[in-house]
């Protein structure tokens, strides 16, 4: 083989293995970091393991907010047909309010409790239902 041909072969080998590595990297990373979104009703039927990270969304039920010690907070998220209790430790965002929309990401703990590690209140810059966007900003 002459040097030019040799170089070509090497180039093809390197390029294809590099793209293979990148593809694998992307697939692997995507598989571990996709957070599906559920409403409380969908949670009733969905089959979700307790280790899987998901997002849930709905309204914070009025009068359901309870504070425990050390910033532990528990409240109920409802879509007006089903409910789920959500537990969170930390400081709630500015626009978290009973009766308002909320999106929480975290993991299920059994069927009835959701342990959130992040809370995004709707009306928040983070998550606004489209219809108020037009005048919210």
């Amino acid at each position, binding site marked *: 083989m002459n040097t030019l041909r040799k170089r070509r072969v090497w180039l093809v080998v390197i390029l294809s293995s590099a793209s293979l590595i990148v593809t694998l990297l992307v697939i692997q990373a995507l598989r571990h970091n996709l957070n599906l979104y559920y409403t409380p009703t969908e949670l009733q039927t969905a089959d979700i393991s307790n280790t899987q990270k998901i997002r849930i969304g709905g309204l914070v039920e*009025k009068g359901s907010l309870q504070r425990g010690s050390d910033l532990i907070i528990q409240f109920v998220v409802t879509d007006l047909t089903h409910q789920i209790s959500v537990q969170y430790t930390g400081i709630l965002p500015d626009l978290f309010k009973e009766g308002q929309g909320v999106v929480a990401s975290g993991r299920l703990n059994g069927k009835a409790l959701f342990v959130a590690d992040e809370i995004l209140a709707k009306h928040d810059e983070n998550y606004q239902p*489209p219809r*108020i966007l037009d005048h919210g900003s």
Partner: protein
Amino acid sequence: MRFLLPLVIFAALCGFLWKGLSLTDKTLASTLIGQSAPAFQLNTVEDPNRWVSEDIFRGKITLLNVWASWCHSCQKEHEVWMTVVKPADIALVGLNYHDTREEAGRWLQSHGNPYRLNILDERGRLGMDYGVTGTPETFVIDKNGVIRYRHVGPVDREVWDKKLFPLVEALQKS
């Protein structure tokens, strides 16, 4: 061929974006019209101990009128309400927007009160849910608590005669 690749990828991307737009379209088109009135729990201008919710819209056709004592065009509109509400079989509910109970109460006393009740929305949160952009605004809500029509700006005789009253009549028949 490899020079065509960017174009092909871009075309595929545009296809997805196009589909994606129609997805958002669905949720965006659902503005307030045809939807249930947003939920709330507020007390009234007249009585700080009386708490009302969106249930007050059920059973009767309601005009929800957003007003404030600091709003000058609301005064003009107010004269219209004083004359047209009683003869028509409707409930006129006020949404007192960014105002205080004292100011609003005084205003109603000096100008007269055509409202069945006035929801006190001091911080404007309910107004925000309704997407109110300014005062006055008026929403027509049917017997099932579904928003049917939104009028931005003051209602004068003409708007009443040509738009709101016919709409209310039609809703009453259905």
